């Protein structure tokens, strides 16, 4: 945003490092806490890669609960951010998975959302503004702290999922919501019946915030005051911790199996080798040596495996946008 912001020493240093890399023709890999992407010391051409670690740039910059907005440095660990919000009876609506020490910046960069996805929305829905450093080392700001803001293209939401390949995110403002008081119920049934039921229930006035199928049980989560559930045959209350089992989902795999994240329409019938259904039916986790035959499949392993299934037209747009943000290709591509 325009106007004079106070110079920020740490951010200045990041910007310097990026500018210098332009002069040295040096590739940079942005890292948070590397909970997702382990650092590789060379790029695709085998040239050395310099690390730009943002995990020390951490902490809450501004938080006014009544404005429903928190502004945070990108290196802030999720646990720290979530604890600060919980203290004021608020939370991140998108319930990001915490792989141990994930930062909010890394979570933004990979665009990870939890079980409430179809009910409350995805990570980018809650991004109001970001400050960043582009590939030329310029400090930029897009959006702001407003829940509504349509001035200029929505760059802060667009860069969700950019995986450190277009800009270094230094700060972001996120919309927060009141801490939800939730109860989980479960009932035993076959997978296809559960998929049907979770869709049917999501179309009723029941305030649902989660729907999943795991190890033979249909789980659903409800927020706030609602009609009695346990008077229905087979339904019982169970522990909320199931949502942490599924988010992040870290199953034990058999030898030779791989974990596939499959995103589908919520009503998609059961997919072969599925070991968990989440997000109201829109997310399927498949354990198999072979890639499931669906359009939105990601291999889930210690390293990102980008899908690269864009049409030529979309590919051209993505490459073009990368050049806009990082014309000299300083930031490492995965």
């Amino acid at each position, binding site marked *: 945003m325009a106007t004079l912001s106070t110079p920020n020493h740490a951010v200045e240093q990041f910007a310097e490092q990026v500018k210098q890399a332009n002069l040295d023709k040096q590739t940079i890999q942005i890292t948070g806490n590397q909970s997702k992407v382990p650092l590789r010391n060379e790029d695709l051409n085998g040239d050395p890669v310099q690390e730009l670690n943002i995990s020390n740039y951490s902490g809450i910059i501004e938080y006014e609960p009544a404005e*429903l907005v928190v502004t945070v440095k990108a290196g802030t660990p999720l646990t720290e951010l979530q604890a600060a919000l919980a203290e004021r009876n608020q939370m991140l609506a998108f319930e990001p998975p915490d792989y141990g020490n994930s930062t909010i910046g890394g979570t933004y960069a990979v665009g990870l959302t939890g079980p409430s996805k179809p009910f409350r*929305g995805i990570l980018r829905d809650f991004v109001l503004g970001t400050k960043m450093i582009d590939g030329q080392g310029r400090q930029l700001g897009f959006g*702001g702290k407003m829940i509504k803001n349509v001035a200029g*293209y929505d760059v802060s939401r667009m860069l969700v999922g*950019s995986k450190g390949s277009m800009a270094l995110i230094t700060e972001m403002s996120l919309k927060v919501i009141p801490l939800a008081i939730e109860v989980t119920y479960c009932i035993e049934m076959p997978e296809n019946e559960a998929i049907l039921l979770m869709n049917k229930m999501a179309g009723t006035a029941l305030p649902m915030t989660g729907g999943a199928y795991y190890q033979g049980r249909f789980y659903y989560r409800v927020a706030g005051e609602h009609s009695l559930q346990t008077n229905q045959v087979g339904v019982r209350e169970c522990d909320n911790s199931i949502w942490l089992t599924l988010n992040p989902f870290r199953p034990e795999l058999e030898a030779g199996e791989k974990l596939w994240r499959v995103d589908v329409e919520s009503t998609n019938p059961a997919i072969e080798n599925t070991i968990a259904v989440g997000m109201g039916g829109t997310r399927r986790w498949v354990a198999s040596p072979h890639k499931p035959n669906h359009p939105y499949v990601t291999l889930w392993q210690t390293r990102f495996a980008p899908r690269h299934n864009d049409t030529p037209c979309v590919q051209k747009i993505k490459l073009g946008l990368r050049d806009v943000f990082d014309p000299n290709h300083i930031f490492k591509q995965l």
Partner: protein
Amino acid sequence: MDVIQALTDAITTKNVLSSVESCRPYECDGLSAYREKPLAVALPDNVEQVKAVLRICKQYKVPVITRGSGTGLAGGTLPLKDGVVLGLSKLSEIIKIDPLQRIAVVQPGVRNIAVSQAVEKYGLYYAPDPSSQIACSIGGNVAENSGGVHCLKYGLTVHNVLSIKVLNMDGEESNFDEKDDGIDLLALMNGSEGLLGVIVEIKLKLLPKPEAAQLVMAAFHSVSDCADAVTSVLEQGIIPAGLEMMDKFSLMAAEEFAKVGYPTEAEALLLCEVDGSHAQVQTDAKRVADILSQKGAYKITVSQSEKERIALWQGRKNAFPAVGRFSPDYYCMDGTIPRNKLAFVLEEIDRLSGIYGLKVANVFHAGDGNLHPLILYDANKEGELQLTEKFGTEILNLCVDVGGTITGEHGVGVEKLNSMCHQYNTPELEIFHGIKAVFDDTGLLNPGKAVPTLHRCAEVGQMHVHNNQLPHPHLERF
């Protein structure tokens, strides 16, 4: 052959307008102070014809101004005299409704309200509800990322769209889906004001209708008490479905127009709607009423029936035309501010209103900080429109200076180009122009809208530092 002939050959004579008379309805959008007769208006029947129009315009290097229903309030569809208006009103088919999956797939010309009407029988609705919803199109909603009175709880358009199909100037189609890997091009398209592509199909998220809703109406002796009360409601963990505030002028005008029993002696009126399960609504309505009275509301009415709830909304929903009756013309602003700056900003607007000699009525989406000051003026009075615009620009700059934005939901269009220079610096504007060029290297899609040229900002900048003084020097800069 000229472009009009080529269009006629491609999409038939009945779908191409070019006479002064036939083009008249397309000369402007909701910002009627700006008008221009386009070279021609193309009204394709289907997506194949849209592609043909784009290819022809590219071949003849003719600008394309995409138009939905033309209800935009920022001049986003203002024609160019050498450009073609691409009107999508005939693409008005609801392609698919899947009640189980809770989605609808629609063409861009479908009116907003038509979606909710079509899915009502399933107990579902489409949440974003701009006040213009009986007329505005879903394509226009996506292009503007429109909001409505319920967006604090249910989100803007961007939060309720699952995928879109978009054409570029070559007529090539791309699909942007929420499930896509990598950067979020779907989010980028929301609010891109017709500069990045022509949206020809939209998959919408549908929500179950809440079981119950109740409206709490509260009257205050001062605007700042009312603003504080809003803060308390949100602080205590209630997210109302709607939270609207009116100042004295608007509430009096609304009451005179709609006769719904608003307390005309109040300085500020708050309408707070809660929805959800019956039990939740009862609890929340009571909590809201308690909080508001603790925070100085001197009169509180809680709707006791659906009929009463709808009646109480009528005044607010008609606030614009109601205020409009007091003046030949009015100009609607759309700045958004942090709520805690509300009292200050309203005082400043009042002060400026005195200086400019123009009356202002304020309606306010209080929950999300979106202000709609309505400046009353008379376009027939020499120079009054220019004066109004200048006043408007000052209000928007003020919004930016307190940490807000120049537009919450109406978009930049042609109207707020100068204010964009105030909100963004050169590198950000360069990025915007870069993005535009990636999607549209011809520069033919809605040129001159939404993002000011650097040249223009240089000139505006010279205006701003007039007398070497920044506006509002006493304010901290954000």
